[in-house]
């Protein structure tokens, strides 16, 4: 059945969008760092997965065990040494946003440059679990289904962690109002660093998983940053569940437009929705009105 086919393929595509967006919503929404180098970190993780797989035969799924903690530490270090001075200096949220955009814009070129030196500029693609599975009559690639499952697990897991635990509540408090959070004895700096590092760990997970089916090269990061940014802003900055739901919805909408209307219009529809949300609900579908 066509509609069911669209729904299932769309959800799987959307799972990938959600997967690459949830890290950004943590970094931008909680740590208040608009990380322009986000996509570069994703591509970096993809390269790591490729390297592990092609040289020592470690599967990308096993590679997650290495990539995720590594990215957590690297992002923690970046926040501590590179971004903390900006946070300290910033008089307002707006200023921190501008400063962090400039700083991470530079970071983008550093990460990209390193990838170019190590891997050159050519395309990379390897096949892992590119085998068909049938779900309710729809044929899908197993690797994409796995990415979808991970997106769901990470999204729901993070949502529960943020709403049901003490640390999670502290993180949400910072997302709402960092000044007030510090008044109730929340260590804003540590918690922000934690959120940024967690976001970095998630983007690494995303990079490893999408490398199983996407073709990538050292200069492709911006494609992922753009997509993630749309999902994060529509979903509500800092809202993990919002990113999950919007990512999935975007996948279904794009697939629906491709099958029912015209594939050439997918981008137009995506950006039209983006604009409508910005006009009608600038805080995002799941965002709170007060920032």
């Amino acid at each position, binding site marked *: 059945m066509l509609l069911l*086919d*669209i729904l299932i*393929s769309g959800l799987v*595509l959307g799972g*990938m969008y959600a997967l690459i967006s949830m890290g950004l919503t943590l970094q931008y929404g909680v740590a208040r760092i608009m990380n322009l180098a986000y996509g570069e970190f994703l591509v970096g993780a993809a390269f790591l997965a490729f390297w592990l797989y092609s040289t020592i035969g470690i599967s990308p799924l096993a590679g997650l065990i290495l990539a995720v903690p590594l990215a957590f530490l690297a992002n923690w270090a970046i926040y501590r040494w590179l971004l903390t001075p900006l946070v300290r200096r910033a008089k307002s949220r707006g200023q921190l946003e501008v400063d962090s955009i400039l700083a991470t814009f530079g970071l983008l070129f550093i990460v*990209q440059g390193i990838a*170019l030196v190590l891997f*050159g*500029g*050519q*395309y*990379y*693609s*390897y*096949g892992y679990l*590119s*085998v*068909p599975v049938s779900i309710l009559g729809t*044929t*899908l*690639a197993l690797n994409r289904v796995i990415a979808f499952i991970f997106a769901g697990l990470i999204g729901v897991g993070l949502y529960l962690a943020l709403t049901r635990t003490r640390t999670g509540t502290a993180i949400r408090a910072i997302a709402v109002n960092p000044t007030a959070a510090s008044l109730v004895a929340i260590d804003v700096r540590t918690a922000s660093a934690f959120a940024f590092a967690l976001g970095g760990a998630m983007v690494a997970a995303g990079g490893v998983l999408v490398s199983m*089916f*996407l*073709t*990538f*090269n*050292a*200069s*492709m990061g*911006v*494609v992922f940053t753009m997509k993630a940014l749309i999902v994060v802003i529509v979903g509500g900055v800092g809202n993990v569940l919002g990113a999950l739901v919007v990512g999935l919805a975007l*996948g279904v909408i*794009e*697939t629906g437009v*491709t*099958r029912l209307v*015209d*594939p*050439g219009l*997918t*981008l137009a529809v995506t950006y039209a929705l983006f604009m409508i949300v910005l006009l009608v609900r600038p805080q995002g579908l799941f965002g709170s009105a007060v920032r």
Partner: protein
Amino acid sequence: MLRKSLSRLALAAAVSALAGPAARVTTLPNYQLWVKDVNAAGGITVGGKKLQIEVVEYDDRSNSEEAVKAIERLGTQDKVDIILPPWGTGLNLAVGPTFNRLGYPHLAVTAATDRAPEMAKRWPNSFWFLGPSKAGAVALSEVLGKLKSENKIGAKVAMISVADAFGIELATAARAAFKSAGLEIALDKTYPIGTQDMQALLKDAMASGADAVVAFSYPPDTIAITDAARVLSYNPKVYYTAVGTAFPVFKGKFGAAAEGVMGVGGWNVDSPALQAYFKRHTEVIGREPDRWASPVTYVSLQMLQQAIERVGKIDNAAIIKELQTGTFDTIMGKIKLADNIMPIVWWVGQWQNGEFVGLAPTSYEGAKAPLFPKPAWKQ
């Protein structure tokens, strides 16, 4: 003024989001290989003296403004003898006026555009090596039309194309060329650049009932479409994807499953000179060349060297004249440009036994018969 070292070259590298990477697939490796080959042989002979090539290299980051600035700088500040152009159709069109004003020969190799004849007329110092993309559609319709006239495939063709410069040009030309070859386009869909899920499009192609599927695609899409076709076990009798099919990454990823896939490019696999070139490229650069613009890039450099040697001094006006009128000995045989345009451009190739053999234009020396029907995807 003649320098002690002769050609100082501008190697324009690339890192932009969509255009860049191929500079490192095709253009730069061949520049490096050529410089190495020439210098190892003692250099370029100018006026009885052998001169080594010295390279000045700027990274244009696949940004046309950067490329124009770099070429300006090479010409006016570094005062190099020869400038090698950047990678890509867009960039070569962008730097055309600068090359023309500075008076350097402009070897626009990795530039496939229908505007090539017009540009060659406007800038007589520019040379176009991948020809007009219209020729690509004609060559493809030649292959498909023949299969249809032999009643091996039906008239229906499913066509998918990327909504970007080269994809649009090819698709536009194909609509007319397929029609005149007696083919009927059963599905004609475009997708935006950067589309990450190709299954939906392929399902439409499957439903169209066409025997031949043609995708005017860019490298990441070429791989994504092929991946999706394999997952869906969709095995049309003729399967064609455009840019990237001839790249080493395609062979590396799909291996034996690439068998029977057609795409842009190809080469005369029987030519010993080309075989030697492929071997040397692999040894020197550390990876295989792509099977489309790589040998052509090398040919353009061989022609440049011979033109300089015949003129006997660095006189760009005379070198340009020699390139326009001379006949050159290259790895692709004797080449004489026709109105500044390369006469041999392989437009359809096919993976056969691990090699991307040239199929069309069928009149070329070394053109092979297509492997038909495309064998089932190997998993």
